[in-house]
């Protein structure tokens, strides 16, 4: 990490990753699937990624930006955080500035919304794959206890308990029962 060239490498990789992720997904939670494949193992560890997703849904404000900040910081310090942030902000900003100026033209060209409509099912499938990997690697060795926690969380969210409370509770249960 002290090698200067390596830091430049990390920052470049962070920039491209977040640029790509923010061009191919429409909001924070939906970018998790793609981000997992791009970042885990290369830029951050599995545990850091889970912290990033968990905490970004717990803290107020945009999930996508918080994910970018956390992963950027974990991979490349403060400069990593700001590079990731910039890369996440660029695509929507440029697009919105474009749209507000040519709004009426774009509305007739429905291919943009068709593109996003086509993305949606693929993103959901990707998210299910990612959810399995996060579950398997994050708590696979905890056996039935992990399954119990997962099913309980799913039920709680199904019945509209706020996600941030479910995630914090699950984490605290982990601190009590799963810290070796």
């Amino acid at each position, binding site marked *: 990490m002290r090698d200067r060239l390596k830091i430049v490498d990390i920052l470049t990789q962070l920039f491209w990753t977040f640029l*790509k992720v923010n*061009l191919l997904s*429409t*909001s*924070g939670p939906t970018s998790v*699937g793609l981000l997992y494949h*791009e970042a885990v193992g290369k830029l951050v560890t599995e*545990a850091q990624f*889970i*912290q*990033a*997703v*968990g*905490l*970004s*849904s717990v803290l107020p*404000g*945009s*999930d*996508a*930006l*918080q994910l970018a*900040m956390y992963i950027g*910081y*974990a991979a490349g310090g403060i400069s990593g955080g700001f590079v990731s*942030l910039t890369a996440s*902000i660029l*695509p*929507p*900003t440029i*697009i*919105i500035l474009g749209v*507000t100026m040519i709004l009426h033209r774009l509305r007739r060209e429905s291919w943009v919304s*068709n593109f*996003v409509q*086509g*993305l*949606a*099912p693929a993103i*959901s499938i*990707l*998210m299910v*794959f*990612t959810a399995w990997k996060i*579950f398997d690697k*994050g708590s696979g060795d905890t056996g039935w206890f992990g*399954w119990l926690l*997962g*099913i309980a*969380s799913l039920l709680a*969210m*199904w019945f509209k308990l706020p*996600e941030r409370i*479910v*995630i914090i509770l699950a984490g605290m*249960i*982990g601190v009590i*029962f799963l*810290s*070796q």
Partner: protein
Amino acid sequence: MNQTNFSVWLKLLWLFLKVNLLSPSGPASIGLLYKEAVGTIMTEDQFVEAVGFSNVLPGSEALKLAMFVGFAAGGVPGVFTALLGAILPPTLMMLVVSAVLQQFQEEHWLKGFVAGMSPAVAALIIVVAWELFRVGQTKIIGRRTFIIAALSVTALWFDLPSPLVLLGAGILGVILFR
């Protein structure tokens, strides 16, 4: 004139600082923003249009919505003011949290916390995935959606790179939903 412009920007900045401190994510901020912005900054029609566009265009939802509202209130400078207000609270908070947590990566309690959190995070992802899959589906586009979903499962099963899968799905969407 400059005086009034300045007060518009200040109001925008304050509005988005508030909304982003009080709501956990993009979709959740819509309700709060509606109350604050409709009638004062933009009409209901403009707001509905902004929400529609935010859902359809790539990138973070909360940011896009903020920029639309900012544009309606104060043109291009309004866009950047709203952006600033939307970016500052979540990222500064996260910067502090990540800086603190990186010091504890090897602690046992943090490992326990992650082990406990991961089933819940997985559950959260599944719930969001389900909502995304269901949103705006009518019976007619249901079959096409299903085709794309099935193809995605196959592609991901064989470890095709996920950006390629998504790009392919988007292009298929352009062809199928025409």
